[in-house]
């Protein structure tokens, strides 16, 4: 018998005494927290990420200031011009490792947890470009901010690869002392538009 058939057979035998139906209650929702964008900013900053809020007209300038002259890669359809930036056309990991910063958009922001989710569409680019460089400047539109995790899950397409980002890379592996910055970008700068 194949391993597959044997395992499925064992599962069925193990559950012979069990009725399959269990009611899964809807998970509770957070109460109304008021100004979601303000909460989002507060919670992102809690992770020791930097947040800059700006008007749509100032976005390009704010991004340039955040990059502070760093060598930069951008996804194919960022939607704003970043002077001097390399547009990703399938750069190798080694090439990305020689670039300091990346600018991307995002798909959704979660206020309750201070999380940004990327779905790696062309305004955000491949997963590798927002991972290897050490500074990630991430543009989030105020209209993209939702209350909590279930709202984000409802919006996101699971067929896409998704990266949920809550602050810069961190570890608590040494005496449970939180240290920002291990392998992912050590600096996360969120630019909130609107």
């Amino acid at each position, binding site marked *: 018998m194949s391993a597959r058939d044997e395992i*499925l057979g064992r599962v069925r035998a193990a559950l012979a005494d069990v009725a399959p139906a269990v009611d899964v209650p809807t998970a509770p929702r957070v109460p109304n927290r008021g100004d979601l964008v303000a909460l989002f900013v507060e919670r992102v900053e*809690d992770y020791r990420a930097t947040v800059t809020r700006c008007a749509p007209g100032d976005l390009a300038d704010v991004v340039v200031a955040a990059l502070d002259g760093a060598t930069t890669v951008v996804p194919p359809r960022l939607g704003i011009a970043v002077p001097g930036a390399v547009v990703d056309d399938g750069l190798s990991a080694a090439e990305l*490792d020689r670039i300091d910063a990346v600018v991307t958009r995002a798909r959704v922001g979660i206020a309750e947890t201070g999380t940004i989710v990327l779905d790696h569409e062309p305004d955000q680019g491949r997963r590798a470009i927002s991972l290897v460089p050490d500074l990630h400047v991430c543009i989030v539109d105020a209209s993209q901010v939702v209350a909590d995790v279930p709202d984000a899950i409802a919006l996101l397409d699971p067929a896409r*690869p998704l990266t*949920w980002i809550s602050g810069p890379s961190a570890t608590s592996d040494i005496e449970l002392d939180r240290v920002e910055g291990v392998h992912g970008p050590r600096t996360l700068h969120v630019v909130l538009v609107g």
Partner: protein
Amino acid sequence: MSGTFVGMPAFPTAARAALGDTQLRRNLAHATHTIRDKRARVVAEVEDWEELRIAGAAVKEAALRDLATHLETLEASLVRAGATVHWARDAEEACAIVASVTRAHGADEVVKVKSMATQEIGLNEALEAEGIAAWETDLAELIVQLGEDLPSHILVPAIHRNRAEIREIFRRRMGAVGRPAPEALTDEPAVLAGAAREHLREKFLRARVAVSGANFAVADTGTLVVVESEGNGRMCLTLPEVLISVVGIEKVVATWDELDPLLRLLPRSSTGERMNPYTSTWSGLTPGDGPQEVHVVLLDNGRTRALADEVGRQALRCIRCSACLNVCPVYERVGGHAYGSVYPGPIGAILNPLLNGVSDEQTASLPYASSLCGACFEVCPVRIDIPSVLVDQRAAVIDSHRGDRVPKQEALAMKAAAWTFADARRLRWAERASGLAGRVLGRFSRTTLPGGRTAAGRLPGPAAGWTGARDLPAPPRESFRQWWDRTDGGRDGGRQGDGS
């Protein structure tokens, strides 16, 4: 048997050794208390935490109760999304699959995301035997691997090491397997983390094959989920050409939406954060982004054995948050190694016997590694009633000895007690003997129990097995019945008997 450390003594022996290590006890107390407090703070922030737990438990329970259907759905979704699905009955089969995929690509190394399932099956050792190096990339796993040590915690496998010990390990061992630690390495956590970043980066950039586990596997979409902090997971899941994920069959949830309570419960219970720094999800292949060959190994290795256990099957709901370890008074004092398995603490004390059976002495000792205080059940985000399963597993251990030619000490004691209690004269005689013993033991006792009663330490002779890990209260000098006779039920104001 898999998942257990070869040659580990039974829990009481290992615990005795661990308790003697004051450095270990200090490291553990500091770490467990820190994380306990963090968890309590972020859990208190969620108004409906209990409802969230109920929803999380129900999601996992529903998936388990119809597991065969969900596994078939998962397989179909994965295949549709371009992944190759393998099934592994046991550790050996799973390791062979990973080795053969790796070899097919001519690779002699893999980078690894922290994964309990691959530890359980002993993947690193199996790959090494095939000439394939497996590099652990999680910081704590790296510390354990470089220190040629064993993990002692689900979430923070190097929890038993302090910063000075970690610095020593990095200085002595990094150079032998790659980029050495910098000369100026201090014991600052940030500096140590920086050294790990430099050391591992060349491995990430070079690796062609990665191995991961998964925190969740969504049946209806074929999505795997990895929850992490450092970004080493993202590196492994993104940069190599080939990705092999070893996923226990109990990781399945039915639908994408059902991830919601679990993604809210896990980080708060585990690292005590509102959300962990990184969560990656992927469904098979994405052209032009990430690994272009994706394998998923669905692993049984004892899970169907656990599933068949009416009381114990709830243990398969576990999302490996490690909250139960951090609150456990036994774990806090003895640490993870004493459990002799990659799954330590309260969950390990039930999961190991459920996955492996209780036929060997080491596993059979685990259900007793608990005071049944219930703290584990209280914090468990998926409401696993660990104390009930512990008691049930103790019964399983006793049952497994029913046919023994030489009965266990405990069985003899119970038989003797039944004979004594069955007859009033016998009981009176036994009580007198016990009062005498109380006077003798009281003199030799070395411990005072809460409430001031003295206790005997380790007794010689046949009771050594029992008292080796417990303090036996010295019996009172006078039994209740003797006291009643002497004082006419307390009416003549006689002195109370006590055991002092």
